């Protein structure tokens, strides 16, 4: 039988010491929904609610919440998340907004609490943004869908009744959004115009080394124009977080290359 790792030998709550655990790539996906009146959902979709762009606001709230999970859950560690994504799916049949959150990290502890927190706070923000017109909304089914990496191994939620109904999509992917495979590469601003490339996809196994330097080399092998990516002034972001040549990559990542920023 598994023990509760947050309870010590005397039965008291304690934080798990992770200093000696191996670093590994970890990912967790959680989901949930908020159910509302069809009229509320219609206002939300049309952007006509009094508080403005509901989904964009709720997305930022979810991302911010994931980063602050350790401030909310007493025994959670502060984690340097490499990526947080919050996605929405409008389910008109059930009059729901389905929320899913993906958190990623290379580290010593899992990110399922971060993904669950992101979904919870996204749903709460959706409630806050819509409550002026609908106070009877219900938040439900907040759950961990998948978790990969770490000693306790991978986890994938077994399809529940609701998902069996839609099980025709088959083998192990029941009810789950399928993750994109390969790397999505974007070139922005002056770099896009200079290279004549905006977006391209590259197979993950074209990389000899799974990091940014490896990606640059694989792109150079495709076309010599991409040697410009190695200029010192060119910056990069992995899943929208600033990175460098050593930043590790995994299948499904989004990588952007761009010149120094000039806003303001």
């Amino acid at each position, binding site marked *: 039988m598994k023990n509760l790792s947050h309870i010590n030998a005397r039965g008291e709550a304690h934080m798990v010491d992770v200093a000696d655990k191996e670093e590994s790539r970890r990912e967790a996906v959680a989901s949930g929904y908020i159910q509302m009146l069809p009229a509320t959902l219609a206002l939300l979709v049309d952007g006509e609610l009094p508080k403005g762009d509901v989904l*964009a*606001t709720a997305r*930022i709230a979810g*991302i*911010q919440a994931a980063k602050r999970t350790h401030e909310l859950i007493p025994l959670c560690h502060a984690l340097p998340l490499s990526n947080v994504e919050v996605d929405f799916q409008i389910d008109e049949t059930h009059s729901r907004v389905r929320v899913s959150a993906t958190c990623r990290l290379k580290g010593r502890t899992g990110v399922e609490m971060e993904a669950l927190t992101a979904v919870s706070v996204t749903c709460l923000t959706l409630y806050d943004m819509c409550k002026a017109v609908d106070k009877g909304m219900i938040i439900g089914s907040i759950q961990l869908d998948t978790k990969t990496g770490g000693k306790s191994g991978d986890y994938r939620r077994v399809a529940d009744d609701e998902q069996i109904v839609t099980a025709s999509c088959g083998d192990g992917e029941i009810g789950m959004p399928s993750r994109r495979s390969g790397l999505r590469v*974007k070139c*922005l*601003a*002056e770099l896009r*115009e200079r290279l004549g490339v905006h977006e391209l996809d590259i197979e993950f196994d074209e990389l000899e080394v799974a990091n940014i330097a490896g990606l640059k080399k694989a792109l150079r092998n495709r076309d010599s124009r991409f040697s410009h990516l190695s200029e010192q*002034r060119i910056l990069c*972001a992995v899943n*929208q*977080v*600033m990175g460098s040549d050593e930043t590790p990559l995994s299948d499904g990542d989004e990588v*952007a290359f*761009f*010149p*120094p*920023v*000039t*806003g*303001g």
Partner: protein
Amino acid sequence: MNRVQQTPFDPGEEQRALTDGRTDIGAIVSFTGLVRDFNERPDVTGLTLEHYPGMTETALADIEDQARRRWSLQGVRIIHRVGRLSPGDPIVLVVVASAHRREAFMACDFIMDYLKTRAPFWKKEHTHSGHYWVAERETDQRDANRWEE
């Protein structure tokens, strides 16, 4: 609430929204950046601002977060426009509210320095003699580095 938008903004309205119904705020510092008609060339007729949707919002939230960790602030609002702009148009707004003036002055200065060197926006200037992407300035980087010490 920070925003990235194509439409103009009204600094007065944004400041009122930040202080609405509150009497604990003692100081507001507001910075508005405008499009100049001279920069790398003397005859700028307009500019186009590009950004990296998704990362931009995260970067602005992160800059706000860092400012809030450094100073005791009662409100922050960052608005940045994107798309095609003309000389004289407002391009960026930072409004900071705090109990006392020093925090608000410092935080507003900090947010602009970090925004100019960390938020993924790029300017392309249009002139009578052609269009070009604006080059980064070493002075902006130096300004941002002041806060590291």
